[in-house]
C-alpha cells in the first residue's frame, strides 16, 4: 500500500533507478516481502522508471498539472498529463487549482479535473487537494466531493511540499466523503494520505480509521495508498524487531 516517491528538483535518472530497485526488493534479508504499490516521479523521469520496472507489476505514478503549485495554464497541464501517460505512467497525481477553489470558482476546478481525467485515458487519476492550503475541514469535504464528482479515481491529501500534509482529522473527513459518495453514486473511490506518515504506528492508526470508516474493501493497494517513502523503512525496522526482539540500526536498511 506504499507509494515510494521522489519529487525533488535535484532528482536524477540514477536516483529514480535506485528507488525502483528498492521498490522491487524492499529488503534483501527478508525474502517474501510484498513489493510496494507504485513509484511516484516527475513526468520527465517516467521513462526511466518504466525501463527499471518493466514486468514487475509495480505501477508508475507521475505527478502532473504543474506540481506542486498548479500555477500554470490549463493547456500546459493537459499537455503534461498526456506526455506522462505516453511515457508510460499508470497513474497521474494532479493538483487542483487551489487559488480558483478558494476564490469560490468551483466550476473552473471541476471542469479542469474533468479535462485532466479525459487526458489520462486509461491511466488512473489521483486528485491532490493540498488540504494544508484549504483552511478548514468544510473546504476539505467540499473539495473531496468536487473531485469525486469530476471523475477522480483517488483523492489524495497533499503534495508533501506544504505543511501540514496528511493529518488524521483531514483524512477522516475525506474517508467520510468517499463513503457518502459511494452510497450516493455506487462508485468506489480510493484514498491516499501523503506526507508526514513516516512511522508504522501512525500508519496503523490510518489503517484502523480506513477499516472503521470504509471497511475491509478499501484495505488493498487498489483502493488505499500511503504516499510516504520513509514509512517503508520503519515498517522493515518493526518487522526485524518482531523477528529478532531488538531494534536494528537504521544503517542496516537501504536508503534509496
Amino acid at each position, binding site marked *: 500500500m506504499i507509494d515510494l516517491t521522489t519529487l525533488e528538483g535535484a532528482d536524477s535518472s540514477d536516483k529514480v533507478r535506485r528507488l525502483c530497485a528498492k521498490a522491487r526488493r524492499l529488503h534483501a*534479508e*527478508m*525474502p*517474501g*516481502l*510484498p513489493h510496494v504499490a507504485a513509484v511516484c516521479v516527475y513526468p520527465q523521469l517516467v521513462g526511466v522508471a518504466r525501463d527499471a520496472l518493466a514486468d514487475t507489476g509495480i505501477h508508475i505514478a507521475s505527478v502532473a498539472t504543474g506540481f506542486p503549485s498548479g500555477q500554470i495554464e490549463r493547456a500546459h497541464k493537459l499537455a503534461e498529463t498526456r506526455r506522462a501517460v505516453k511515457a508510460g505512467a499508470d497513474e497521474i497525481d494532479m493538483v487542483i487549482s487551489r487559488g480558483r477553489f478558494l476564490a469560490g470558482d468551483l466550476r473552473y476546478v471541476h471542469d479542469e479535473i474533468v479535462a485532466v481525467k479525459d487526458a489520462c485515458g486509461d491511466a488512473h487519476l489521483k486528485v491532490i487537494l493540498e488540504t494544508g492550503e484549504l483552511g478548514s475541514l468544510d473546504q476539505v469535504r467540499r473539495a473531496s466531493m468536487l473531485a469525486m464528482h469530476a471523475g477522480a479515481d483517488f483523492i489524495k491529501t497533499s503534495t508533501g511540499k506544504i505543511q501540514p500534509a496528511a493529518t488524521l482529522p483531514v483524512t477522516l473527513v475525506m474517508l*467520510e466523503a468517499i463513503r457518502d459518495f459511494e*452510497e450516493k453514486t455506487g462508485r468506489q473511490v480510493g484514498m491516499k494520505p501523503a506526507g508526514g506518515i513516516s512511522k508504522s504506528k501512525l500508519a496503523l492508526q490510518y489503517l484502523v480509521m480506513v*477499516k*472503521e470508516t470504509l471497511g*475491509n474493501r478499501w*484495505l488493498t493497494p487498489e483502493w488505499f495508498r500511503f504516499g510516504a517513502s520513509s514509512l517503508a523503512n520503519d515498517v522493515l525496522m518493526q*518487522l*526485524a524487531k518482531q*523477528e*529478532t526482539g*531488538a531494534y*536494528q540500526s537504521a544503517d*542496516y536498511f537501504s536508503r534509496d
Partner: protein
Amino acid sequence: MAKPTGEPLPFGAGDALAYAPAPESTEHVQLDERYGLFIDGAFKTPRSRRFFDTVNPATEQTLARVARANAADVNDAVNAARRAYERHWSPLKPAERGKYLYRIARVLQERAREFAVIESMDGGKPIRESRDVDVPLAAAHFFYYAGWADKLPYAFPGASPQPLGVAGQIIPWNFPLLMAAWKIAPALACGNTVVLKPAETTPLTALKLAELCRDIDLPPGVVNIVTGAGATGQALVAHSDVDKLAFTGSTAVGRDIQSALAGRRTRYTLELGGKAANIIFEDAAIDQAVEGIVNAIFFNQGHVCCAGSRLLVQESIAKDVLRKLKRRMQSLIVGDPLDKNTDIGAINSKAQLERIKAYLELGRADDLASFQTETSLPATGYWCAPTVFTGVAQSHRLAREEIFGPVLAVQTFRTPDEAVSLANNTPYGLSSGVWTDKGAKVFQISAQLRSGVVWANTFNKFDPTSPFGGYKESGVGREGGLHGLSAYLDVQDAAGRGRA
C-alpha cells in the same frame, strides 16, 4: 541485522485485517477472597456474619465475597463517622483536609491501572472506558474539591459555611468508583465525614478505595464503607444520626428515601433516572452526530442515567441518519470488557439483563421496527447487542421509561417546536443533547429544554467543575462544581439566615 531466517513472512495468511485480541492483563490485580466492612479505619468482620458474592458479569465467576452489613453494622459505621467528625476532621485546618484529598487523588492516579481493571472485572464495562473515563475523572474530582477545602469562605462570600456532620451516601453500580468520588470528595472537602454504601453488584473499587484511604493515613472513621444490598441502604437512611443523605440511583428508590426522610432534619440530594432526548437538526454535522448518538446511548452499555435514550431526528435527514447509524453500529465490538478494542462490554448483572430483555420484548409486542448489531455474543456472561427501535410514539413505554441498557428509541420531528415539546414530554429531566451547526439554534433550543444538562454537539461530557443534576423526577440538588459544595455545607449569610 540478525541473520535472515529464510522463512517467508506470513503476509496474506488468514484474515490479516481482523483485530487481534488485546486483553488487558489482570495479573497485577490483588483481590482478597473476602472483604469485611471498612469502619473506623480498618476492615472489620460484620456483626451480621453474612457475606455475599460479587460476580464478574462477563464470566459469571465470583471475584470475592463481600460483607453484608446489617443495621448494627451501619450503626457502628455512623458512630465511627461521628467520632471522626468531632475529634479529627471538623477541627482540622481546612488546608490540611485539602492535603488529604490531594493525596487520595495522586495515589488514585498512581494506581489507575489497577482500579480500571477491577472496575471492568466487577462491573463489565469496557477497559477503554474505565481506563480513559471512570478512573481519571474520579481522580479529577478529588483534585478539584481538594482545591476548595481551604477556600470555602470565598465560594460563599459574606457567609460562614459550616460542615453538616455525618454524610450517608448511597451509590449505584454503573460508575462505581466515579460515583464514590463524586460523593466523597465534596463531602470531605467541606469538613464532613462519610458512610458510603456501594452498590451490591459492584463493591470492589469502593473497597479498594477504602484500602487506599487506609494506606494514605486518612484519620480513622473519616471514610467508612459499608457493603450490602437494599436493606443496608435502608438502615443507613433510617439512622437518626445522619445529617445529610446523598443518593444516586433509580427514581423508585429515590422516592422511598424522600418519604423515609420526610419530617426529619436530614438534608438530602438525589440524583435519579433519566430519559434524555438527543435532538438532531437537519443542519447538524451528520457523521459527528452519528458518533454522538452512539456515545449517548451505547456508552457504558447504556447504563447511564443521563444516556441519550431517545433520539429525536428531523424528518428530512432521518433516513440518512438511520442508515449511517446502522452502519456505524455494525462496527461496534461487543465482548470481553478487558479487551482494549471492546466498545460494548457486559450487562452489569443478570437481573439488569432480564429487565432490558423485557423491554426488548415490549418493543416487539408493540410491533415496533427495530435493528440490532449483528454480532456473536459470548456464551457465558450477560450480554445485550445494541438495539434501535424506530417509529416510536410518546405513548410507547419504550419512550417513557428508563431502560438503562443499550436500547435506543427513535422518533422524528418536523419543526423545532415539535422537537422541544417531544423532548420535554417526560417525567424526567436530567440531560439532553442538541446537534446543529447553528450557534443561535443551540441557544434557542437549549433554553427551552427542561433538563439539568444540555449538551450541544456532544454528549456524556463530564467535568468536575460543572454542576450535574436533574429537573422533575430526575432528582433534587446538584453535584459537581461550586453547586456541589453547597450540598455539603450549612451556608449562613451575615444575618445568620440559612441559605440552602
